[in-house]
């Protein structure tokens, strides 16, 4: 059954969450809207299209310590990092929440990434369904949609004077006090439509397109920055480095991307993916071929961030169209 929460009650609920645990929500930073830790409920933005960067950094941080090694009584002791405290992420768009199910596939598969699993267990995901779609949104073609509840514990849908509330999981229900809710009298507003992208059968087509000259042509204009991967809600690659300080060692991981020049460099200096075209093909093959072959779904949720943020307009929608149009290789 759907329930209703007034805007005022939603704000009190957010305040309660902020006092009980870390609250992360969209907020204005200069001319950007970003997910940030909230210290004043008034800073939470309730009306926005989507944030400039994805919320993945709250589950898969840009930089994170994996463990410390300390020397104690002549022996080395490994101290794994622990995630303290709980977090509520409020204001996730359905595509971004669907993106978290994509991070789950590699990171929770046995053996699970222990830090990611801890973040996941200690985080409550609260969604805000979309009432409008941007021209670059294509979630519906990628198995998601403006009302998708995948990964979410609670979903809010804005209506007149308040929000419809859908507590989806046990965790979500336990956090939503009945006293703040009333039976919903308003009907759910219609979901917006997103422009279709030809994703059907793309995996087989990507296999056929592997050796074509196409990737080199697209890569001509790629500047090989990491913007697409870093704004993406599903990209999950990282680099690892040890920091040493007077006998203690800290192992750190940070985001890294297949577009950066040294990503595949191996011992001895060889880089099997040295040319631009091979790097470009890797990005789209991972999203549309390798990931679906390994885990099932396409590795893109159609949030449109890379489309908007790419400095040189490398557009995954156009790439899918082009690959679909290619004939079988001779």
């Amino acid at each position, binding site marked *: 059954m759907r329930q209703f929460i007034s805007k005022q009650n939603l704000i009190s609920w957010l305040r309660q969450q902020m006092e009980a645990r870390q609250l992360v929500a969209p907020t204005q930073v200069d001319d950007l809207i970003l997910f940030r830790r909230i210290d004043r409920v008034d800073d939470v933005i309730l009306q926005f299209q989507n944030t400039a*960067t994805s919320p993945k950094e709250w589950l898969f941080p840009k930089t994170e310590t994996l463990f410390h090694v300390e020397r104690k009584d002549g022996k080395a002791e490994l101290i794994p990092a622990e995630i303290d405290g709980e977090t509520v992420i409020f204001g996730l768009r359905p595509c971004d929440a669907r993106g978290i199910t994509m991070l789950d596939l590699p990171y929770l598969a046995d053996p699970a990434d222990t830090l990611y699993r801890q973040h996941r267990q200690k985080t409550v995901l609260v969604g805000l369904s979309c009432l409008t779609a941007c021209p670059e949104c294509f979630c519906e073609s990628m198995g998601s949609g403006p009302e998708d509840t995948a990964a979410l514990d609670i979903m809010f849908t804005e209506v007149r004077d308040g929000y419809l509330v859908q507590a989806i999981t046990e965790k979500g229900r336990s956090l939503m006090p009945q006293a703040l809710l009333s039976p919903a009298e308003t009907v759910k507003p219609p979901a917006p439509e997103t422009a279709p992208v030809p994703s059907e059968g793309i995996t087989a087509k990507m296999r056929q397109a592997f050796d074509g000259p196409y990737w080199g042509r697209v890569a001509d204009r790629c500047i090989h920055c990491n913007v697409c991967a*870093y704004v993406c809600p599903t990209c999950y690659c990282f680099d690892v480095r040890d920091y040493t300080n007077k006998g203690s060692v800290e192992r750190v991981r*940070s985001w890294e991307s297949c577009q950066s020049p040294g990503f595949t460099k191996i011992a001895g200096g060889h880089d099997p993916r040295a040319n631009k075209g091979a790097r470009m093909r890797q990005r789209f093959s991972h999203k549309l071929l390798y990931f679906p072959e390994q885990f099932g779904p396409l590795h893109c949720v159609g949030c449109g961030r890379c489309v908007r943020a790419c400095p040189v307009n490398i557009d995954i929608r156009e790439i899918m169209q082009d690959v679909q149009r290619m004939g079988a290789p001779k």
Partner: protein
Amino acid sequence: MSQTAQIRQAARELLQGKAVECVIGYERGTDGVNARPFFAYEAAEADRLIFDQTCTHDLAKYLLNRKGKSTAIVVKPCDSRAINLLLNESQIQRDKLHIIGVVCPGVVERRWGTPGAKQLNACQVCQQHTPVVYDTLVGQPVSEPAVADPYPDVAGMEAKPADERRTFWEEQFSRCLRCYACRQACPGCYCPECFAERLDPLWVGIRIAPGENEVWNTMRAFHLAGRCIGCYQCEQVCPVNIRLSLLNRKLEKDVLGMFHFQAGMDAESPPPFSTYQKDEKLGIGE
């Protein structure tokens, strides 16, 4: 004839006559509004080329991927300075290049899906509307306006107290994702191995965190002192809108003040940081 038509004609002739293998220019992007870089290899592709106020990219950087290959390139006046910078630093060969210079009225800020309404900061203080180097000129040369203060934003920053500047930059750098889009778009950044990716020994940590972000951004700025051409590409491509041009153009301004040097105005003047004169003092030890 429009600038687009002139560029198409020049490109078609160059490709047809096999004078060059490739013409680097602009075509319309997928939002239907903005331009994006385009590489034409066949004469038939010349008709995809365009030029208008959304042609914001500095295409000169792409020449580094085509070393030794005959290439024609469409440049705005600021991009033509990037070509001089690269010629001066022996990164590209002039005889392999055909430069299609465009007289530029200024370009607009790139905004996805909507025509940019605001002229790019760089264009508001532009003193170079005709390319400084070209083989084919598209458009009629114009007389250059006298701009009293080409660095109003930098001067505004300089006037602020140190702690205010510190707070400003700490906040700006805290957002940095170290995606390196600024470096990748910059015509002056072409080291085969960037100090930020030098792993043995490690110069800058891999952490995407305030301390490392600050080292990354300030060191990059210092590497561009006397080399920055003020094209604003770094700021344009930043996904989190860090005001990088304020930092990089501060050094451009200082070099202009101290050495009366502006990068890329010609391909011959020795850059201040590659030369040494005995009487240089710069106030050190005075």
